């Protein structure tokens, strides 16, 4: 039997790994270490495993790989590390270079995961069919029945699984082409509408468009844009994400927009790293670099412009959950706070560790349900202790996870993207001037 090993283009580099001095400073910011107290569920432990596999001292088998698998890829360790270890890309490289082995020797669960991601997220039509079934289920009343009277008699596992499903009552956001064209446009941007985002949380997109329109920014959503590939790269399927990246670069380039705006932090962070993703590809490397340079998170974009000239009052107490891929991957913690603080009537009440992962982490909550639940429980305690009316996020994945958690705790706290609150404030401002 051939031994599993790091192979292919993406083998983690010695230079990256060498930066780790084993100081352990990253341990207290790692949610999985905090939940388990197990060294190998810590960034330092995982880096040690990766270095060991690379040196041939440690076998890459299901047991060692499990420790890599339990990583949320939240990159909090990257923020904490005084030695500038690029943990995120080391982990992505490690996963990719395991997946570059022949299918027959890949870990089974990794193979299945990639297979599903490739065949669903990469395919808009299939995805929409699946979601439409979900919507039917939500609207049929069956969901209410299961969440209500049937909850007690159904098996715990099923109830828990069902609870993690979003409620899909709203009409999806499937618009493309020109979304807003103000009379005098200050700038033209292209919006990533994403593969699943508009299906689950249409109001995040409509709010984004509303705010940009108010800021006199022309918005287009290029037709035929595809999934950003973030989940694929996290799962180690670098090839699939390279393919999606090339497609997106091509499509967005032809939109003629000066910026590519993203309102899902996970997607934005992946797209900002297209340059690195395609670094081995002579024909695409430079194009990808240029493209990545144009990608901005919606909140980052908003605060770079004047946005607070006509905001109306929104009376609420909110707390902010930093999206890991905004705070740690894109190093942006200020923008969401600047925006929330600018909204009249809104009180921002910080939780104690807003930049700790909620345990959603893409599909993590599905593949590592137990650890994800532990991480979520710690988060919920922190969120609920603020007694806020709304918890703000900057990523649909976090929203999904927090909604599920709050439902479990029977809390009526609302979960909203920061941009939705800003849109609310814009509306209130407009209503006031209209009067």
């Amino acid at each position, binding site marked *: 039997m051939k031994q599993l090993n790091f192979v292919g283009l993406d083998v983690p580099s010695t230079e990256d*790994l060498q930066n*780790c*001095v084993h*100081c352990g400073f990253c341990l207290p910011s790692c949610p999985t270490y905090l939940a388990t107290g*197990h060294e190998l569920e810590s960034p330092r432990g995982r880096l*040690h495993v990766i270095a060991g596999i690379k040196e041939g001292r440690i076998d890459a088998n299901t047991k060692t790989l499990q420790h890599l698998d339990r990583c949320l890829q939240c990159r909090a360790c990257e923020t904490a590390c*005084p030695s500038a270890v690029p943990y995120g890309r080391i982990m992505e490289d490690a996963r990719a270079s395991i997946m570059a082995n022949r299918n027959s020797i*890949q870990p*089974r669960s990794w193979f299945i995961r990639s297979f599903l991601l490739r065949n669903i997220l990469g395919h808009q039509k299939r995805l929409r069919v699946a979601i439409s079934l979900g919507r039917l289920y939500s609207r049929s009343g069956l969901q209410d029945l299961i969440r209500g009277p049937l909850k007690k008699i159904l098996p715990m596992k099923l109830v828990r699984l069902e609870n993690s499903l979003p409620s899909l009552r709203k009409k999806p956001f499937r618009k493309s082409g020109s979304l807003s064209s103000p009379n005098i446009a200050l700038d033209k941007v292209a919006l990533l509408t994403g593969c699943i985002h508009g299906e689950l949380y249409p109001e995040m997109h409509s709010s984004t468009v509303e705010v940009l329109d108010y800021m006199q920014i022309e918005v287009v959503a290029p037709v035929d844009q595809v999934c950003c590939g973030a989940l694929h790269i996290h799962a180690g399927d670098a090839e699939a994400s390279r393919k999606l990246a090339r497609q997106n670069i091509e499509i967005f380039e032809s939109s003629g927009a000066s910026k590519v705006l993203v309102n899902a932090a996970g997607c934005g962070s992946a797209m900002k790293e297209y340059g690195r993703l395609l670094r081995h590809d002579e024909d695409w490397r430079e194009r990808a670099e240029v493209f990545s340079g144009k990608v901005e998170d919606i909140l980052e974009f908003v605060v770079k412009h004047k946005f607070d000239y006509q905001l109306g009052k929104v009376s609420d107490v909110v707390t902010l959950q930093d999206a890991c891929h905004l705070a740690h991957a894109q190093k942006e913690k200020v923008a969401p706070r600047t925006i929330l603080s600018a909204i009249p009537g809104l009180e921002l009440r910080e939780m104690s560790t807003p930049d700790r992962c909620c345990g959603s982490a893409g599909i993590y909550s599905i593949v590592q349900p137990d650890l994800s639940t532990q991480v979520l429980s710690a988060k919920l305690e922190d969120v609920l202790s603020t007694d806020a009316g709304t918890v703000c996020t900057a990523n649909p994945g976090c929203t999904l996870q927090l909604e599920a958690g709050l439902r479990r705790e029977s809390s009526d706290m609302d979960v909203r993207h920061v941009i939705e609150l800003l849109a609310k404030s814009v509306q209130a401002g407009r209503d006031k001037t209209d009067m």
Partner: protein
Amino acid sequence: MVRFFKRSRHKPEPLVRELIKVVGINQVLYTAEDLIGYEYDATIERAAPEVVVLPHTTDEISSVVKICRQYNRPIVPRGSGSGLSGGSVPIKGGVVVSLTRMNKILDINIENRYAVLQPGVINLQLQDRLATEGFTYAPDPSSQRICTLGGNVANNSGGPHTLAHGSTVNHILELEVVLPNGDIARLGSRVLDTPGPDIRGLFAGSEGTLGIITEITAQIIPLPQSLKTMLAVFDTVTSASEAVSSIIRRGVIPVALEMLDQEIIKIVEPRIQAGYPLDAGAVLLIEIEGIPDAVDADSELVKAACEASGASEIRVATSSEEREKLWEGRKAAIGAIGAAYPAFYLLDGVVPRTKLPQVMEDVLAVASSYGFKCANMFHAGDGNLHPTLMFDPQNEGVLDRVLECAGEIMRICVDSGGAITGEHGVGLEKTSYMEWIYSQDDLDAMENIREAFGPADVFNPCKILPNGHGCAVGHAAEINIAMGGNQTSADIYI
């Protein structure tokens, strides 16, 4: 085709089975894949244990110790593994007892000014919690973000604030420990005075060789009413070193008095933006605390002392952000070296404060005679040096020269009337230096103390005492050389 992975059919050893019976399956690690996580600390030393136990209670630890004795396996306590001397590396195999899951703050008693802690509580976690009540725990190792209180006691750790407040030993009221025979003992008491010899004190700096610390009652103090953090900039290390003695001579004991030299400023500043001038020869980071009037008066004295020694600039932090930045540069210095160089060797020596100017000149001269860059960031007030040699491990034979150079630097410290470790402990790596500062009689006496608690090979064998004292492992330097070369991970070589 997808193939199923074979499950490991490894049947646990009898020792493991017994341990599982006592603490439960989820608290015992014994597969090779799990054990590699416990083969290191923050040094280059590597040795995997045979079993790791992650207990939740003192009673569990007591049973674990008894079982290990029965099977004649050594026991190595482990906190967060941030140690800088190989202390928690199980060089003789055996059972690592990891205390990370015993991390509860059990009680905070403001009236009697103590906190009762499990050994896995993180130093900063305690400080943060106390701060909400207006209190603090004084010892603050630069690693406070991650090191455990148990590790702090075992290494008698110090930090920037050791100068005014003393090291960990000065802040421990009572300890609960599990002894080599598995008995649970309480040492010291929660009141300030205990009659008889201070056995509790022996555990400070015992580096896990006498027993496992399972509960700590630590003294807490109110946060200072007023605090001033200053940065004094000098052209040379020598003039900064002179300022250190001059400050103390004027009757001021700052709570912290730290030095960073040019080499380390060049590494830290671009990464952390702490606010250290890039063209400085050395800076002193000085902190004074107390009642507002005294702080003002002392800061004038400090200014005068620095100016007399030729400071080109003296800056007082005006906001808490500025203060935190100044400190961040100091606390993240070691990590920043890791980002800048593939490998480095960090030494830990103490010298009399008044000898600092001469010693620093000698240290830099020795380093440059070997062709190494040497960075210095250290607790200048206590004369606790951390000369750090930077090098590329890929260079042929470099490790030999690093160790030789380190030996010469240690010699300089010892010859000046100093010692071989200021705070990082002796551990595995500095055992052979012990003979430089202690006579055979001294070492025998230490071994007798160890044996008064139980056989020397029960807890953390081969640590602290050099060859011939209950251990046959060669000096760590030899291990280093044997390992040298093709490392993928950079390491702090001690």
